[in-house]
């Protein structure tokens, strides 16, 4: 098993790298090819930017979907981050092992399953509405607020919150717990009161991790399909839903537009990820 010098690292990396480069590269190339109209399926080999023009046309549904996708991603991310921060601060002061387990437990419920749970629980005739009706708070399902399959994506956002709050909470907690004596205690000893400790110590301490985590969350939400497909309305649709719709359209020419949207999603997510990486790097440097 001793690695021989010089050529050895690349030999060890080769299998994994080949898979990644080959598959990702191919998928990217095909996506670009189809986006510019090179669709061999229907024997169309001319290169044109018409799909881009079509997609970016000011009247196209793309813009509505972009705004809708940005809205659900940004709202979910900000709310998750705020709640997770509060929760983590609260939990770190009265830390128990069962907390970590409880938060990890959430891993067992993939996004798809969470969406289903939200659907069964929060729809206008869902479990919560039934309880409300039993208690006499509402008379008819229509009296219950529209929280699922609503125009503003509230159901989608709630579903993401259910998954992302535990994720970010764990991220923050692991930062807070990485010291044997919390900086919190140090700060208290130096005279900081509760609020000052949160303001001047806890938040700056977890900010890089929280920011990086939030950007990951944003990228994930922005590009994922299942939740908005299940909990969204017909219009406006999230970008990934729109992209897949075009991609699966019986009219194969629509695939170009699907690919264009998919490439735009990838571009946005990549930019966000690069920012997140940079934050992570700076944090490492700071801590020497």
């Amino acid at each position: 098993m001793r690695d021989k010098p010089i050529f050895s690292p690349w030999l060890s990396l080769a299998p994994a790298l080949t898979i990644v480069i080959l598959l990702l590269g191919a998928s990217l190339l095909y996506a670009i090819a189809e986006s510019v109209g090179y669709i061999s399926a229907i024997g169309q080999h001319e290169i044109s930017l018409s799909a881009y023009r079509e997609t970016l046309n000011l009247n196209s549904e793309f813009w509505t979907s972009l705004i809708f996708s940005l809205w659900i991603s940004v709202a979910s991310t900000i709310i998750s981050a705020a709640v997770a921060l509060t929760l983590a601060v609260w939990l770190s002061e009265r830390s128990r092992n069962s907390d970590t387990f409880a938060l990890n437990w959430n891993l067992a419920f993939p996004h798809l399953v969470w969406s289903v749970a939200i659907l069964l629980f929060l729809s206008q005739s869902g479990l919560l509405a039934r309880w409300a009706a039993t208690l006499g708070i509402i008379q008819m399902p229509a009296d219950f607020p529209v929280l699922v399959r609503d125009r503003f994506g509230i159901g989608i956002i709630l579903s993401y919150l259910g998954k992302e709050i535990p994720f970010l909470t764990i991220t923050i907690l692991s930062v807070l717990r990485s010291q044997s004596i919390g900086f919190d205690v140090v700060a208290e000893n130096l005279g900081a009161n509760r609020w000052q400790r949160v303001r001047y110590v806890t938040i700056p301490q977890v900010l890089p991790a929280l920011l990086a985590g939030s950007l990951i969350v944003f990228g994930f939400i922005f590009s994922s399909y299942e939740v908005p497909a299940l909990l969204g309305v017909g219009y406006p649709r999230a970008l990934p839903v729109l992209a897949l719709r075009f991609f699966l359209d019986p009219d194969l020419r629509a695939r170009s537009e699907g690919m264009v949207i998919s490439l735009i999603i990838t571009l946005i997510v990549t930019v966000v990820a690069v920012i997140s990486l940079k934050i992570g790097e700076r944090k490492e440097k700071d801590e020497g």
Partner: protein
Amino acid sequence: MKHFVTSKFRYILYLVLVAPLLLFIAYAFSTRWFFPQPFPIEWTMETFQHVFHDSQTIPSLAQGLWIASLVGLLSLILALPAARVLGLRKFRGRQLVWLLFFLPTIIPPLSVGMGLNILFLRVGLAGTIAGVVLAHIIPTLPYTIFTLSSAYARFDENYEFQALALGASPWHIFLNVTLRMMTPSLVVAALFAFLISWSQYLLTLLIGGGQVITLPILLFSAASGGNPSVIATLSLLFIAPPVLVIAVTARQLNQHGNQIREQY
């Protein structure tokens, strides 16, 4: 009093986290449960049996487990040598390699799947289990590599030198020293590759092309407006393996889980 309030809050938090499970159980084992009845009136095993007798359920379960196991195994095999190099060696281009392995975590499965769909059709992998396994490896590989390379970074190579000095063969050292010391990380990495694959919807849909059916495919099509009892039953089946895995690996998760969580 203050303590009472805070401990209560904690249990509310726990309740929120178990609530989906209770919800699914209530829906899965009841029938004719309509608004505004607050709790099920008619309990039944019928839906459960019905779902099990559906010709799709068992094959999709088996197929999903088989695919996820293969993905777990393969990503370990692919990741181990790469993770070792990344964890223990400094070499030119290391940054670039990191970045390349990071890419699959960024590029959404949607784009990967849409692009690969055409390639796999050409080479005959579309609609086959092999194709789906290969596609699933894309999102799982980075996580196995990251988990294992951080384990390797903590691994002291002197144990291997020691074994070598004591006369062990390289193969023996790999099996009995390296792998044994890495076992906890290996288990976690494999399990999470398994889980990511198990819950993969889009890639399976786009590559499997309706021929490779796994539980998320069934659940998704049911959930877009189907029978609530069936949806709940499928959800229960869907989360059974993850729940088991989480329960078994609770401790290791605290150390490794975080970086893996998001994709999942």
